[in-house]
């Protein structure tokens, strides 16, 4: 069952098209990773989902309700953490957490205290004296001490130290175990790899890929290194081989997953002495999308 359902969502600011066409679905009980380069449109998508800005066209539903017209109803069951948390300088962290809790519905004191403890936050301090990470903790404590069904987190850990990052990951794991759903936008790939069931990659206002990590790995190429008695020049004619190169008798190339079988058959009679294969790292997987963009940006200049 889908908790968030977005279809052909478009958003323009004047003549600038921030979202071209976004389709995405977050199912119940799943953590959905939302990644993409800076300025790709993650935050704009999320702000549209929250009814803070209005979509130019397309459909967006949360809990089966329209995100614009039923915003208040939806927000009773949802918690949001922005990446850049701006707070009122003259209120204390504790006051802000209570305010946020009350504005959503009610305050669960024991849970709030537990979270303050876990994130080791000093709630007595005025917000103006908090560091970036501490302001973020205020928002995280408010979110995790709520009893929401859906958590929308927009780069929630960009200011946290490694220890707090771990606490954050535990918290996400716990809400996931309770069967709740999470939409997590993040630039920290290890975090995404650890937490997310499914991933959507957005670039220039379009979702260019969605799926589980496993599926995505499958789509990419394997890096292979081969040493053999005979020359491997002939490999270039084999389908599914890319970037073939020879350095000091070592042949390196990339292989498409679906052609693996053929390639191995081809190599077998050539007297292979050494064969290494590396699965694509998550980094490489994403880098491909990020890099394309930079290349395109550069060529535009």
């Amino acid at each position: 069952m889908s908790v968030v359902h977005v279809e052909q969502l478009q958003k323009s600011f004047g003549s600038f098209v921030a979202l071209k066409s976004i389709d995405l679905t977050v199912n119940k009980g799943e953590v959905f990773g939302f990644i993409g380069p800076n300025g790709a449109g993650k935050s704009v998508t999320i702000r549209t989902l929250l009814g803070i800005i209005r979509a130019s066209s397309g459909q967006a539903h949360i809990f089966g309700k329209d995100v614009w017209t039923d915003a208040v109803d939806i927000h009773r069951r949802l918690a949001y953490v922005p990446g850049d948390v701006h707070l009122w300088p003259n209120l204390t962290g504790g006051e802000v957490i209570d305010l946020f809790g009350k504005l959503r519905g009610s305050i669960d004191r024991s849970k709030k205290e537990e979270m303050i403890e876990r994130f080791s936050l000093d709630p007595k301090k005025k917000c103006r004296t908090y560091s970036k990470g501490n302001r973020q903790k205020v928002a995280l404590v408010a979110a995790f001490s709520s009893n929401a069904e859906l958590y929308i987190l927009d780069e929630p850990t960009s200011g946290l130290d490694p220890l707090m990052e771990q606490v954050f990951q535990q918290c996400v794991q716990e809400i996931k175990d309770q069967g709740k759903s999470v939409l997590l936008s993040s630039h920290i790939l290890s975090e995404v790899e650890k937490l997310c069931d499914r991933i959507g990659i957005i670039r220039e206002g379009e979702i260019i890929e969605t799926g589980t990590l496993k599926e995505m790995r499958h789509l990419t190429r394997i890096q292979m290194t081969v040493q053999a008695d005979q020359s491997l020049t002939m490999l270039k004619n084999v389908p599914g081989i890319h970037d073939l190169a020879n350095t000091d008798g070592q042949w390196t190339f990339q292989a498409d997953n679906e052609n693996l079988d053929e390639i191995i058959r081809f190599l077998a009679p050539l007297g292979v002495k050494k064969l290494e294969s590396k699965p694509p790292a998550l980094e490489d997987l994403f880098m491909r999308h990020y890099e394309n963009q930079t290349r395109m940006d550069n060529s535009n200049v």
Partner: protein
Amino acid sequence: MFKNTKTLSAFMFKRDRFLIPIWVIGLVFFSLIVPPTFDEMFTTEQEREAIAETMSNPAMTALVGQGDMDNYTIGAMTAHQMLLLTAVVVGLMSILLMNRHIRTDEEAGRTEMLRALPVGRLATITAAFINVSLVNVLIALLVGFGLYTLNIESMGLEGSLLYGMVLGGTGIAFAGVATVCMQFFENSGGAIGSSIAMLFAFYILRAIGDVNYELLSSLSPLGWVMQSEVFTGNHWWPVLALIITGVCFMVLGGLLSARRDLGSGLLRATPGKTEASNYLLSPFGLAIRLQRTSIFFWALGLFILALSYGSVFGDLEAFFEGNDMLQQMLVGDHAQSIAEQFLPMILMVISILATVPPMMNVHRLYIEEKKNRVEHLLSRAVSRPQILLSYVTIATLNGLILLSLSAIGMWSAISIVMDDPLSLSTLYQATMVYYPAMLLMVGLSTVVIGLTPKLKIVLWLYLLYAFIVLYLGNLLDLPDWMGYLTPFGHVPKIPIEEISVLPLLVISGLSLLLFIIGFIGYRKRDIEG
């Protein structure tokens, strides 16, 4: 310690290249525009004596200080009525400029980047002080020579220069005071607040001194301002004393600043509340909490203004007698007493001023939006109308309170100084008729915030237009329709006119319509940030 002070100072000038001219031109213009007006208004000695008599009362002395009432030339009049208040504004300018360069930059983390460069620890503070001092010297010279070129008989070269120098000296003194005050607090709000509190305290100290106990005035830099007796006695020691005060405070500020960490204050912030009190826990409670300080100070300021306007009612007849120009500013025919004719104009001024805070109350919502804090509310179970309603409610209530306070303030003063005072109910009614006009301005603010917040400057210009046209309209012989373009122009002038309900109803109805448009707009637009 002082390395790169010069570079920093130049950089600060560059950053302030728009702000400084605004202050300087504003202050110089203000100082130069008044004496010719006086010169035109009070041409005969008899007229000048009459106004001297009106001004010689404790309330006026407390407000503007002591003057040479026996020899009330145009020069003496200018020094008496204008010098102190202008000096206060110059002091305020210095405080704000100093703060902008020291605490605001520090808070925004910009100073940190500078400190990481080879820049001395005391360089920022010294550079800021030098800058502000130079601005003050510039004001002193421009005002000094400017006054002299006005060519008014009683305003000689020495007096004119002294007038300018006293202003500049006050500015330098309070630049020093600000450097000390800002060392104690962790944030620029506290720094500005404490500096302004010092300015206010010195002003009050002088007020008490001038009325009762001369010695107290000598303890206040603002007391020295008037003791220079510009255009009559021409004493130069206050200028010297002011500059020395400024430099001493600056040195003290430097010493203190070396003892504190960047971004912190000498006073530790006390820990606040762990839990929010119940009244905070709603959009309305939050909106009040965010604005309560400014609401309070505006109310206090307006009340004091109403008191001081009220206190001139004692000698009004003498004030207006035989002065055509002043009489021209009155609105009624001659059947009524001067007080009754004078009242509507004063109330119009007060009510336009009282419209500023309610408009600010609505505009505050946009400030919150710009600072990305509205999204915290909107991403929870709070609807847009609910948020806007909180701010609009505060504005309308605040307006009601401000007008009531003004009426009460005027009445309190009037009932003390007048032999045959106006009744509270007359005053209250005469003030409250402005409420619909005020609501209309609040309604326009709601429309602007609801639809296109970028246009809010237009509203302030509109209010300014209303002020100028209605205040100076009779004097400048402006056609009536110019006043009718503003809601304030349609308000019946009680007690000289009958109360007419129709315009008030129409204005109220329009306001309601504007509120509705504003709410509809706010439901539809994107929230920025």
